[in-house]
């Protein structure tokens, strides 16, 4: 692993992307949304990729979605991966219409299936950062 001990796990948010990480620390999934046409977007853009509007705002998403696809990470590429392999890689289609690349947690491996309903959860990193992950809908 090439990453040094003193290096933070959480990428340093910029002024543009800070709302995403601030929301995560509050237990919310916050994404960009076009105030004109209502299209949600990820990752960061300053112009709506659908209608071209610059009226992009950050808005709290429902945190619910369905599993578009999944894979099982079997090798560590980052200190976070060590001691917790295999990790379920997931693409989640959130209800607002954006596809997120993320991890699926708290799930039996043989229960992971395209189309399953998932909801956002939050993982605390050793350096104090918090990142959104997803888990099966429990209610």
């Amino acid at each position, binding site marked *: 692993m*090439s990453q040094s001990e003193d290096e933070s*796990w*959480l*990428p*340093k*948010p*910029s002024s*543009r*992307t800070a709302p*995403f*990480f601030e929301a995560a620390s509050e237990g919310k999934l916050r994404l960009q949304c076009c105030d004109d046409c209502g*299209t949600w*977007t*990820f*990752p*960061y853009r300053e112009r709506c*990729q659908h209608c071209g509007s610059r009226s992009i705002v950050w808005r709290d998403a429902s945190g619910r979605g369905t599993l*578009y*696809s*999944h*894979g*099982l*990470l*079997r*090798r560590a*590429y*980052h200190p*976070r*991966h060590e001691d917790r392999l*295999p*990790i379920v*890689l*997931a*693409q989640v*289609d*959130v209800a607002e*219409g*954006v*596809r997120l*690349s*993320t*991890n699926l947690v708290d799930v039996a491996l043989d229960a992971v*299936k*395209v*189309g399953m309903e998932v909801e956002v959860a939050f993982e605390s*990193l050793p350096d104090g950062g918090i*990142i959104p*992950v997803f888990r099966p809908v429990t209610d």
Partner: protein
Amino acid sequence: MNHPMNGTAAVSGLGMTEMGRVYRSTVDLASEAVYLAIDDAGIDKSELDGLLINSGITRGLDLHLHVALGLQELNLLTFMQGYGSSAGQMIQYAAMAVANGLATNVACVFADAPLVEGQRTGASYSGGRRFGGDALSSLQGLYGFTGAIPMFAMAAQRHMDLFGTTRDQLGQIAVSQRAWAGLNERATKREPITLSEYHDSPWVVEPFHVLDCCLVSNGAICVIVTSAEQARDGQQPPVYIRGFAQGHRHDTGQAVSDSAIRGPGSRSASRALAMADASLGEVTQCQLYDCYTYTVLVTLEDYGFCEKGEGGAFVEDGRLGPGGALPTNTGGGELSSYYMWGMTPVSEAVIQGRGQAGERQSSNDLIICSGNGGMLNYHSTVVLSPETAS
């Protein structure tokens, strides 16, 4: 009506360096490939008046390659980047250039040297570089999305969940191609493999084993494109460029697109075949971009060789391998021979089109050749044949 570009241009020269752990610079490799192609075509360096350049993951080539080659009288020169679709694209632009008198002999060259002494095989492809900059994209490294493998593995998994495609079926693609590689002296991996050995090979990202993934190779390949008339007088049997097209789409991150299952290859292939005035049923062999086993499967479906979702059943009887009904990636492909991006399928198509493939020579009446870049984002198709348009 015959399309004006159907058979107007041809491949007259092919230059291939040694491939694999060849620790030379990309510029040196590219230069050698160009000189080999010139010799192969039987032309003098002074007759080379066009140069199209594409470099791989290490970005080791740029426009200055012509300086290393001492080419001072060029009528056409550019550096291009369409990732894995570049090789097919270069041939297309070269064909249009020679057909319209911009240049007479155009060298299309690719080189890459991702293998570094003392460094593990995949290092150049999984480096942190791709995740630099914006924190939201850097986050992907924490989740485990490093390089292209996770996205292709998940695309294959979706195909498996939706259509019941099996691991045996993906494995059969690797097994068939390895069988071809055994007949190719240039191939890096020539030892035959069984399905059982495929399943025993280490996981990378499930459902992908190491044997689902292409090799990493250093090397260079150059093809020379000229007019059909010039090619007929050439040193090598001409391989006519009968049809070509491209198809590109950007994955916008919107949940509406089923980008894992449907690529832009369908649009590209149907238009390329229309230019060649040919139908899919007339294709006698495929040279398909195979960065992963799944790329072959999805391309066969997108091209229409079988219905969407039926790719697994289509390949499982060994149809793609030696003796099969649809010889595919007859040199072993990127999985087993060498990974020169889109030049891997292009070079084998030229060898086959000339009838110079020796033991692995397959029916070459109509060869369809694909290039894929990104996560099924960028696509090129070239249709080649030893026969000119009728």
